[in-house]
């Protein structure tokens, strides 16, 4: 392995320079800007600069009713819009003490997990694009389109679904959706095997990822990193297991973890998560109860009792938590959105110090960032 000592031995003159990555750069997946102090090819200090897509989501929470804020939740992290809506409606339902019918909870689980797969597929394609492989993107988007077709048929939209409602769902699913989802599961399993032999076992990928960008357990805890990042460091933290919500306790699934903590570990965790999501969807389809999809007696004008309420969900990137502070009006007093990408990226400065620049970008890709999720 090439270490820093080989290129600039101790005692050599220390010459650093600054390069500016972004806000428009293909490797930053959007409008993240990173100011990097370099010593030759090595990163001395990489400071992410955020806010280039700050969209006032929390301010908007304070000037519209709970129902009117729902479309915004799909646009915080547009790749896993379902889970984010789930977090918000969950908080409101908890505060209003609404009982969501079991069928609605099951469909929420099914759609959230499908959304998680589609999100991981985008990450997979884009991450490999960062590393220099173009073809996987085409395979990933091909499979993703199947999920989007299914979700579009029931929600009417491809990306920003606004499908969940306070107290239930906007619409029930039909038999075609159930049939189509079963077909999709049957198609997806061999595709994941194909991904494994095409990409995961590829020696070039392994050389690019193994031992690159290790993140320790302690670092995850200190920075509050969650999702595949913390599971890639060997801590089996998953909101679905630790603080079970919705219908998740009724399903049998594993939380994949990897001890190594390097970029490959995070890669493997996400690949295994797709398998587990397929398992959850299959079980949910088998046990799907019948009944209504909307709670009875959802008030038309919703006022939450004063106080503050939290609700956390496991989004594709980690723990997404909503805190609503209410003062017994139609409009929330304060909406705080705790997003996983912000915490996951905040450790980048510490983790990337001393790495080669292309490895630092591999590390950044393995964190799976969605920039509007950081900036909100």
């Amino acid at each position, binding site marked *: 392995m090439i270490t820093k000592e080989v290129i600039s031995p101790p005692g050599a003159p220390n010459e650093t320079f600054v390069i500016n990555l972004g806000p428009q750069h293909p490797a930053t997946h959007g409008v993240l800007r990173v100011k990097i102090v370099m010593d030759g090819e090595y990163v001395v200090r990489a400071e992410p600069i955020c*806010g280039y897509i700050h969209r006032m989501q929390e301010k908007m929470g*304070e000037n519209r009713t709970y129902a009117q804020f729902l479309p915004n939740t799909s646009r915080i992290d547009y790749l896993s819009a379902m889970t984010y809506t789930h977090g918000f409606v969950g908080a409101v339902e908890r505060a209003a003490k609404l009982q969501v019918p079991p069928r609605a909870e099951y469909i929420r689980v099914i759609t959230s997990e499908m959304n998680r797969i589609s999100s991981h597929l985008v990450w997979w394609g884009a991450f490999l694009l960062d590393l220099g492989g173009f073809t996987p993107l085409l395979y990933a988007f091909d499979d993703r389109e199947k999920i989007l077709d299914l979700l579009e048929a029931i929600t009417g939209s491809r990306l920003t679904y606004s499908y969940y409602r306070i107290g239930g769902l906007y619409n029930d699913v039909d038999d075609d959706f159930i049939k189509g989802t079963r077909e999709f599961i049957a198609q997806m399993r061999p595709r994941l095997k194909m991904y494994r032999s095409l990409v995961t076992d590829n020696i070039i990928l392994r050389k690019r990822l193994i031992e690159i960008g290790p993140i320790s357990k302690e670092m995850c805890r200190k920075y509050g990193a969650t999702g595949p990042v913390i599971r890639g460091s060997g801590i089996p933290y998953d909101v679905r297991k*630790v603080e079970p919500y919705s219908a998740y306790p009724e399903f049998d699934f594993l939380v994949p*973890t990897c001890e190594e903590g390097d970029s490959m570990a995070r890669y493997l965790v996400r690949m295994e998560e797709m398998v587990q999501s397929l398992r959850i969807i299959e079980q949910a389809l088998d046990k799907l109860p019948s009944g209504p999809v909307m709670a009875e007696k959802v008030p038309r004008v919703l006022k939450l009792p004063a106080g503050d309420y939290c*609700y956390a969900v496991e989004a594709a990137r980690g723990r997404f*938590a909503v805190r609503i502070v209410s003062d017994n009006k139609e409009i929330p007093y304060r909406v705080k959105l705790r997003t996983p990408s912000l*915490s996951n990226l905040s450790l980048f400065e510490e983790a990337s110090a001393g790495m080669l620049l292309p490895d630092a970008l591999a590390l950044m890709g393995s964190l799976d960032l969605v920039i509007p999720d950081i900036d909100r």
Partner: protein
Amino acid sequence: MEPAPTPPPSPALPNALAHLPIPFQAVDYAAKGYHLDATVNPDQVVDVVSLLDKEGLALDTITGVDWMAQGQMEVVYDFFHLSKALRVVVRTRVPRDNPEVPTIQKVFPGANWHERETHDFFGIRFLGHPNLTPFLLPEDATFHPLRKDFVS
């Protein structure tokens, strides 16, 4: 890669941190979404957070709430446990015209960005913070949009 055995979902533990000298109040998780709630003075924040750090809790988020009617700003620190269902909220209140809290950046380095964001939105100053510059707002921003009296 072997998926690790998942931890069994442990029941809510209202007294899990009872041995700590922190004035915790147990909260009904089903109704509120967190287990323990403590209100402390601003100068106690660093000590309290250090104790929680030793217990192995992870930093969830830091945020503010502007209570304009009371003339106060509230700073809310959220923590979660990595294996137990245990969510802890620590709050502190500072006067609205001079909102100053010591930083917990030395205990939890991840607090850096959360504190910068809270400073952006509310103008709460975190004493001892190494780099309290605008984070989400433009570099030259001097306004604090989530204050209740903000007009653009």
